[in-house]
């Protein structure tokens, strides 16, 4: 009897204390693209635990997906009416999801994101839809010893190489006979890498994927004089033996620069620590200026709220909580990406002043250009990828770019201008 009383007392106490506290929290669901990445999952789980413990209104639970198939899962779930409250979204894809009705505007205290890198802010139709804790950047990776041996000056943010200097550097590397190829653009990495990494070359020549003044056509920007100059230059990289083509071995893409097969490699900050570990004199140089300024891609994964969320205020509270420098720095230290704010960068090992990768923060701040902010980007990106692969394989530059323009324009037309 005494035992029964004790048990009943304990149950009452539980209900009065922990039980009621737990019951009071409304559950929010969140989908994340990091399945299979132990470090990333540890960080996101810590963030969620901290948020859940910090207040009594909301409790976030996470479901992780493999990055490769994440977008397909979200689109399928949207069709089936099964989206969670909080989703993460790749920056350039966000306008498509917003336009398709998968996301709702993100209502947070915008003073919190004043200092955020431009590429981390997902703005569509004049409204904030998503915000990222980090950005990514690419650089021209090489070694100081390579520059010294080839007698090349070190380009800087203020004075990057121009087209002639860049090609002279490739020619010098090729003529040295020390490398299989002078330049590794990363042709083995298909998919989003092509528009992310290579459309900045096009933009530096003066072209673009689509006319950003109207977003209604690619005519004149993807097949104009600047784009044709870009296409011919791009083709010459492969035709003249400066770069490995579309049949590049993925293994060479991963280790070619480290192994000394390539003199220069176009690669992201996520591969920087590996390169530094292999060679202490590794350099991360700014993108060359092909005539219209140096440009690199911007925008990585960001948090947003699904259109079907019944608790957008709770989802926004979680996202605001995640924007603290503490978490920006933790993600940066954990997965090597660029923290979104200067104050968070100062808290990190690699992006603080003088840190091994601090140059990437400057590159992201100075050279980054977001990919075209339009729902049609997802189609334009695939068309661009195919066109660049075809040109690299010897297709006629003008015909290929004209065909790409036709395809992009037809898609825009069939979607009634994508709401622009």
């Amino acid at each position: 009897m005494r035992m029964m009383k004790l048990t009943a007392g304990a149950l009452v106490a539980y209900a009065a204390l922990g039980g009621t506290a737990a019951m009071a929290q409304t559950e929010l669901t969140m989908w994340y693209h990091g399945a299979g990445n132990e470090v990333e999952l540890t960080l996101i789980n810590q963030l969620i635990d901290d948020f859940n413990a910090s207040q009594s209104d909301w409790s976030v639970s996470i479901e992780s997906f493999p990055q490769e198939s994440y977008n397909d899962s979200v689109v399928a779930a949207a069709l089936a009416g099964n989206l969670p409250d909080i989703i993460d979204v790749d920056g350039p894809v966000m306008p498509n999801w917003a336009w398709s009705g998968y996301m709702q505007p993100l209502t947070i205290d915008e003073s919190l994101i004043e200092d955020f890198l431009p590429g981390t802010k997902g703005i569509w139709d004049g409204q904030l839809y998503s915000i990222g804790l980090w950005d990514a950047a690419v650089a021209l990776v090489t070694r100081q010893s390579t520059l010294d041996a080839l007698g090349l000056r070190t380009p800087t943010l203020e004075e990057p190489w121009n087209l002639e200097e860049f090609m002279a550097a490739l020619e010098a590397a090729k003529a040295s006979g020390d490398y299989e190829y002078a330049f590794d653009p990363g042709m083995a990495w298909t998919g989003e890498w092509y528009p992310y990494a290579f459309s900045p070359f096009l933009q530096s020549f003066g072209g673009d994927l689509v006319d950003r003044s109207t977003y209604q056509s690619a005519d004149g920007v993807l097949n104009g004089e600047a784009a044709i100059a870009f296409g011919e230059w791009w083709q010459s990289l492969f035709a003249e033996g400066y770069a490995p083509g579309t049949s590049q071995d993925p293994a060479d893409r991963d280790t070619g620069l480290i192994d000394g097969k390539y003199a220069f490699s176009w690669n992201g900050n996520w591969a920087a620590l590996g390169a530094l570990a292999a060679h202490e004199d590794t350099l991360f140089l700014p993108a060359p200026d092909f005539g219209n300024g140096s440009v690199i891609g911007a925008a990585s994964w960001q948090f947003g709220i699904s259109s079907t969320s019944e608790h957008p205020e709770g989802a926004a509270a979680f996202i605001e909580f995640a924007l603290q420098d503490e978490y920006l720095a933790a993600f940066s230290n954990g997965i090597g990406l660029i923290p979104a704010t200067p104050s968070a960068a100062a808290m990190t090992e690699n992006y603080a002043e003088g840190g091994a990768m601090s140059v990437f923060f400057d590159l992201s701040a100075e050279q980054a250009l977001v990919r075209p902010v339009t729902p049609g980007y997802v189609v334009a990106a695939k068309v661009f990828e195919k066109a660049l692969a075809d040109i690299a394989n010897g297709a006629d530059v003008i015909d290929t770019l004209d065909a790409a323009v036709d395809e992009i324009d037809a898609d825009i037309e069939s979607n009634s201008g994508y709401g622009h």
Partner: protein
Amino acid sequence: MAAVNPDNQGLRLAVRYAVLILIALIFIGPILFMVMSSFKPDLQLLQDTSSLRAFLPVGDLSLENYREAFQRAPVRLFVINSVIVTGATVVLSLIVCSLAAFSFVYLDWKGRDVILSVILATLIIPFETIAIPLLLLVSKLPWIGLEGFEIGWLNSYRVQIIPWIADGLTIFLFVQYFKSLPGELIEASRVEGATWFQIYMRVVMPLSGPVLATAAILKFLVMYNQYLWPLIVVQQEQYRPVMVGLQYFFQLNTAWGEIMAYLTLITVPVLGFYLVLQRAFIASIASTGVKG
């Protein structure tokens, strides 16, 4: 009569064996590469790809990739999920499709030939074309289970099993096989007073070992290799099968050794299933001319 030249005969045999060994190596090569690579660190694995070392257990061998694979993804869970979904679908498919085929071959009912033609016509429809309509359908279907009544089949085993139970190919295999059985057996059973279900259970099915094995293996392979369907209908890790799980290993810096270890692990059930049924499978191919 010309005498057989023993030298020529020996040479012919040697050439024949050489060709057979070459063909065997072409098929075994990728499996050998996968298994050997699963024991090598990434750097060595990539370096070995340019030589025959890729197929040999040489260099720095360890179980590290397996340890890492189990750490990166819930491998056991994925294998168990695939075995549950595949096993249930194979068993139910054999029952349902053989019953349907029995009806098409032995029972005389109106519209039989038309319906069989329609079922066979579904063979030419790629699954990708019906994936989205099917997704919309299953997301609205009702279900009564242990947890009561609910709407929607997403995130469950049933959504991965039920839509795949009946299919045109399996019905076609049974139809073809049942047609090859002696009609006198059925007639004799009818004369003896057996019901149609008794004939199905006691006469036809005991004679259908080869086609059961063939259908089971083909269905097993289809189900075990499922990717698109579970990708769009399952959003919870607890129900994910092995092929969706493979995506866990493709990160920014791909860990090839872990991928090979994972592939080796998930190949084991397939090889085991085939080895158990291979004799009946070969007998079926020999008797029906159906190729898998």
